[in-house]
Structures are given as structure tokens and as C-alpha cells.
């Protein structure tokens, strides 16, 4: 293989990696946000940023 082929393989791999990673993260964020909004509104509870594990074990 010549240098340009290696270069193309490298960049295509990285572009695919970055695109998949970013799409997965953004999609995950939106899905969880939608689920949480639905659950919290159906229960009528106040949204809290608290981390229960941290609260329970704070020294």
C-alpha cells in the first residue's frame, strides 16, 4: 500500500469513530432526558440533582 492509502484508511477510521461516538452520546443524552421527564412528570416529584450514593456515604 502507498502512503495515501494508509492516510485514507487512518482518517476514514477516525472520522467513523468520532461520528459514532458523538452520535451515541448525544442520542443517549436525549433518550435519558425524555425518559426522566416522563417518569418525573407522571410521579409529580421535584427533579433533584442529588446523587443518593454520595449522600448516604458522605463522611
Amino acid at each position: 500500500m502507498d502512503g495515501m492509502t494508509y492516510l485514507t484508511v487512518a482518517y476514514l477510521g477516525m472520522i467513523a469513530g468520532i461520528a459514532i461516538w458523538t452520535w451515541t452520546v448525544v442520542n443517549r443524552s436525549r433518550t435519558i432526558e425524555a425518559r426522566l421527564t416522563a417518569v418525573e412528570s407522571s410521579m409529580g416529584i421535584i427533579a433533584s440533582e442529588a446523587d443518593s450514593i454520595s449522600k448516604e456515604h458522605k463522611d
Partner: protein
Amino acid sequence: MAGRSAEVLLGLGFAGIMTTLLLGFQWAPSVAIDAFESPAAQRIFYWHVPAAWAAFIAFAVLFTGSAMWFFKRSPLGWRLHVAGAEAGLACGLIAVWSGCVWGAAEWGTPWDWTDVRLNTFGLLTLLALFLVLGRQSQPDGVESRDTFSTFGLFGFVLVPFTYIATRIWEIRHPGPVVGAGDDGGSLSGDMAIVLFIGALSFTIFIIGHILISMRITSLEQRLEQALHHIDGGK
């Protein structure tokens, strides 16, 4: 709101990364044809070095988050730990992948097990992989968080070790091209500009990813609490 600003940073960073690629191909000069086995493949460098730089930022975030969780039981610290591990894994894999392809073109082999820089950076990426997979496979609790934070704290030792590796033992990985001390770097002005744009873009991109990852962890915790309420817990 926080989610939107993270997405804006992701978009800006991605645009900058693609601009770097375009400039690297169209504008940056070629290297001397007799100085490299594969001069064309050298252009991998415009993403390889900024990706490694972004990985170091992510590992610093991982270290800070691990320390904040381990010593202060800080929820912010845990979110930083999770985000740092995920971002470190992604950027580490980009740097390792691009380095392997360049090594195959330039050295005739994708990896050299005797090179300190390659192996310490590979270990760092494996550490991030362990933290990401470990968190997904273990139930969330104070014991598992403590264990992963300990790995995050001690694993950071590899970062300065990786940084100085080519200064002390230049075996196969090229030495520093910027900030090389009195000897100066081997980079021409135009190459340095493209590299700088790449580093800046990857920095913005990784900050966006860290913010969105922290938000996901926070949302997951809230969702878990809400489901706990439904199950009758307090």
C-alpha cells in the same frame, strides 16, 4: 440549557476538527521526501497529536474526579471520573489507531513493544477501557466507585511518564516537535498553525464531550432515584 451548550461545543469542535483535516491536506506543506519512508502518511499527524493532547486533558479530568470522589465523596467528582474515563478512551483509541496506521506505513510495523511511549500510552488507553467497561458491568455503589477511583488515581502516574518518554528514551516514536527546549522544534510555521488549530478544536470537542457525559451520569442518577420511588423506596 447545559445540554444545549455542550452540543454547541461538540458542533464547534467537530467543525474545527474537519477544518484541520482540510488544511492538513490542502494547505500544510509536505515533508521532505527523503526524510520519511512514507511522506504522504505524515499528514496523519494533524489529528494524531491533537487526539493525544485531548486524551491527556481527559486523563487529567479523570484524575481530578477520582480524587474528588475518593477523598470528598463529591457527586461532581464521580461525574468527572466517568466523563474523563469515556473521553480518555475515545481520544486514546483515536491516537492509538492513527499511530498504528502511520507506524505500518513508516516503520513497516504498527506497534513496537520495546518503545516506552507507545506502551505507556497503550496502557493508559487500556486503563480507560477497564474503567468504562467496569462501570457498565458492576452495580453502582460506594465500593465499586472507590475501586474505580483508585485506578483513576494511580493510573495517572502513566501520564507524566508518557510525556517524558520520548525525551529520555527515544526508541522509535518521534521526539517532540513543539516545546522541545533549546534545540527547538522541527515544525515549519504553516504546519505549526494547522497543528495549533487541530489542538484547539480537539480541546473544544473534548470539553463538549465531557460536559455531555457528565450530564448523562447526572440524568441516570435522577432516573434511578425516580424508579426507586416507584418501587416504594425512600
